[in-house]
């Protein structure tokens, strides 16, 4: 009885009990691997969900109707609502952005966060410039750098138009560097 437990290996002419047991064992092993593999399909799909779908998302926020900005004389301050989806939760926050025009007259949306050290930059109507109250960085109406400690112009945000509405994707950028670099 003790010896008979030793299954594979003996290649006798007659199919012994051992051979039948080892054949069945192999069959069962294969079957288990197959069923196990089948059962792990939902587990793998479940765990790899973040690879299959987007789980974090920064939605674009409406800024306003396009025709509202058609006769824009100076940068207009707009408060946008940003919806950020993070798995099963979302955060809605408010941010101030400027709608302005670039040199070719196309609409451009600027972040109001100073690229120098992150203060909120107000529009100065009298001087026709953005002037940061913290360290005096100044920017032209289109957001390009004029003077002061900032190493780049105000950051432009990604825009799109949907059903006549100007949409913007709000992002944060690294401060104190000359190239625009998205954080997070």
């Amino acid at each position, binding site marked *: 009885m003790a010896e008979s437990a030793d299954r594979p290996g003996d290649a006798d002419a007659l199919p012994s009990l051992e051979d039948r047991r080892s054949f069945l064992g192999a069959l069962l092993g294969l079957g288990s691997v197959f069923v196990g593999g089948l059962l792990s399909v939902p587990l793998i799909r479940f765990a790899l969900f973040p690879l299959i779908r987007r789980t974090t998302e920064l939605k674009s926020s409406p800024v306003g109707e396009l025709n509202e900005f058609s006769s824009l004389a100076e940068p207009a301050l707009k408060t946008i609502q940003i919806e950020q989806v993070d798995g099963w939760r979302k955060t809605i926050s408010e941010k101030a952005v400027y709608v302005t025009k670039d040199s070719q007259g196309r609409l451009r949306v600027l972040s109001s966060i100073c690229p120098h*050290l992150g203060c909120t930059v107000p529009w100065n109507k009298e001087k026709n410039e953005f002037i940061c109250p913290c360290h005096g960085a100044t920017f032209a109406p289109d957001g390009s750098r004029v003077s002061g400690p900032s190493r780049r112009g105000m950051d432009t945000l990604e825009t799109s138009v949907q059903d006549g509405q100007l949409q913007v994707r709000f992002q944060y950028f690294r401060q104190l560097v000359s190239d625009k670099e998205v954080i997070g």
Partner: protein
Amino acid sequence: MHSNKSAPDAAPPARTGFRAWLNHRTGLDDLLRITLDEPIPGGARFAYIFGSGLLFIFISQVITGIFLALYYVPSADHAHTTVAYITKAVTAGSFLRSLHAYGASAMVVVLFLHLSQTYIYGSYKGRRELLWLSGCMLFGLVLAMAFTGYLLPWDQRAYFATAVGTNAVSEVPWIGESIKRMMRGGTEMGTLTISRFFVAHVFFVPALIFALLASHIFLFRKAGAAGPVSEDPYHPKQKAEPFYPRQVLMDLSLTALLIAGLGLLCFFVPMKLGPPANPADAQYIPRPEWYYLPIFQWLKYWHGSAAIVGVLVIPTIIVMAILALPFLDHSVERRPWRRPIAMVAYAFVVLALLGLGLRSQYLDRHDPSVAQQLAKQKNEEDEYARKPFEPELSAASLAAANVTLADPLAAKGKTIFEANSCNACHGDGGVGTAAAPALIGVSAKLSPDQVAELFKHPTAKMTAGGMPPIDLPPDDFKALIAYVESLK
């Protein structure tokens, strides 16, 4: 050249290659031999398949449970959202959650069959007291898993069923109220209840189950398989057949049946998640999961001073009688037809459980107001199940929005804060920037008067940082202070 070089005949033929190396390091072959050659007196039978079926479901529960924890959060404000996320958003989430939830029911069913087989076959006899005791404790622990797991989705059904369940405990004299508070983590059901149930469900009870399962299997192998009812429980005499291959195949047939049954059920009738728990819903009629219905119905019959009898005395007697069974019943007789008392007792208990469960169902169906409310609850569940997943609004975004709603003075202050470019240095919502510190939490350190004083006469340090004295009309000044004080 010389024949005496070959291995002696008595030793088992040596393995070669990887298998030999692995066996040398692990002793795997011996382990496999011990497992597979377990002798079964009287041969393999379908009656013995339930134990390994249970083991299979348990392993499935452990695996699906671990995966569900990838997305689940045990707290009153997130539990329901995360389970909704699992069922409505995550790929295969509804299937896995269903597998885990239905698995619990399957566990109870197979456990009942396993216990019945052991009892009817008299397999607890013949020095198997500890084996029986560990089995009974495992039964209790499985019911504890079902009870604790039921609350975790935190929907209406889960919340109210657990509220009733924990309330029933408080009927126990003297210590009942304390046990209830201990279970709930307070006098009311809340977020501490979820934490407690979660820890019990994923750490505490599973650890006990692993330990008891190991001893159950060890004690089973120590005592040996009991064999058919005609076998002597102390000294088996019938010809034994090894566990492998026939018994293994029979066991696997139950496993295959469970996989197919649960798989089809989870795919075609996925487990529903109801609307989130609303403790203020005074109309909700709680109903426990089906396997708790008999107890639920039983508790209805015991009120006031008699409650002790129904909640404590009778259940204790029944549990004690079950636990003491192998100590009381020493006879070698295992054939059911020669054990009339044992069989009548079994039939009585099973019929009583069945009767109580059916009675509960019958009463629900024949009370128009109850039936109507239960139908309404089912409708609400179906309706909620059809809705797409809606992410939960984080606390941070609510705080910002609430300021404008809660206090009109603070709301006015917010516009002043922005109009005077305070946010330029102190950040939007007073979160702070590199140029100036955050204002959030200032109210905890400074009174409104102290804030007003600093606004009028900033300290030297503040002035050096660029903070000017504030000169505003009194009303605006007050509003600004109200806003700064509201930043929490």
